[in-house]
């Protein structure tokens, strides 16, 4: 009995060291991460650089979309900043509808709220200027702080990859 056990363990060790150790791989439903990832498909879906990289690449290949001091150690106000960010993203998505090429980047420097956006030029410049002024005025009245929008115009959405 003992001898057979020893032989079994010896066999196992030989297999694992040789590298041909096979077993059943089963992942439970929740073991795979699905957050902020677009799964591989047929190859006809265009993705921007932001969408193509997974969240564990933040800090390495991606930057942060919203920069404030709320999440630092011994600093407060993170929840309020998140709420403001969500509102600003939805507001600008709605105001410049189908003009946004990529996600907004929101920065807070002192009292000033700076919104950096990459847009596709679908409207006339005069209409663009009006919408920019309108968003800056409204948002500065809502949040009681100076709001600046920095805009970059692009011909069409910049595609990084097709998945």
């Amino acid at each position, binding site marked *: 009995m003992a001898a057979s056990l020893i032989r079994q363990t010896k066999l196992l060790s030989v297999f694992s060291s040789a590298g041909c150790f096979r077993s059943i791989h089963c992942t*439970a*439903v*929740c*073991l795979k*991460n699905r957050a902020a990832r677009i799964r591989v498909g047929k190859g006809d879906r265009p993705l921007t650089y932001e969408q193509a990289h997974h969240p564990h690449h933040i*800090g390495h290949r991606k930057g*942060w979309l919203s*920069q*404030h*001091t709320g*999440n*630092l*150690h011994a*600093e407060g106000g993170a929840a309020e900043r998140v709420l403001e960010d969500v509102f600003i993203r939805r507001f600008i998505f709605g105001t410049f509808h189908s003009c946004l090429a990529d996600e907004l980047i929101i*920065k*807070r*420097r*002192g009292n000033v709220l*700076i919104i950096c956006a990459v847009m596709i*030029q679908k409207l006339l*410049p005069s209409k663009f200027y009006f919408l920019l002024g309108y968003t800056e005025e409204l948002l500065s009245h809502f949040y009681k702080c100076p709001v600046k929008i920095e*805009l*970059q*115009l*692009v*011909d069409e959405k910049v595609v990084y990859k097709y998945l």
Partner: protein
Amino acid sequence: MAASMASVRTVRVLSKIFHGHFTPATAVQHHTACPRLVHTASVSSPPSPAIIESEEPDALYQRLSVQVKGHDRAVLDSYEFFATLAAKELGLSLEKVFEPPKHIDKLTLLKSVHIFKKHRVQYEMRTHYRCIQISRITGSSARVYLEYIQRNLPEGVAMEVTKTAIEKIPEHIQKPLWDENKLDASG
């Protein structure tokens, strides 16, 4: 497209300047064809602020400690270079520039909305620190330096300033009590 938008804006600003104060002599420009934002017209500048002199002596600080914290070490590296350069240019004496160890806040949450208690997800928030200590600085220099540093603080970076002031010893404890008692306590 982006270039045309930018040039439209600069042309509008230039036209504002020219309409305000136009002098033909200064309108002669000696640079290349691409329009750049150059104030060639004479703009009436406000009178320079007078230097305020007061009777009170300036505050003296033994040490000015500026600690910055942020999520990105590269940002803190560049900010430290900027702050030390500014201090050297102003002639302040840098005592110590060091990096306290980082602090990591960890959270373990459930991965799923409903069940699956065994599957969790862990998040962490890293806070990196950088400390710049300047020794033997006056109050007005400290104010100037801090204002310059704070105006150029990048987004996502927080700063804590600690000042150690030097004060004169108050009059009632300037002389030790046992000196006066020597004359009284004879026996």
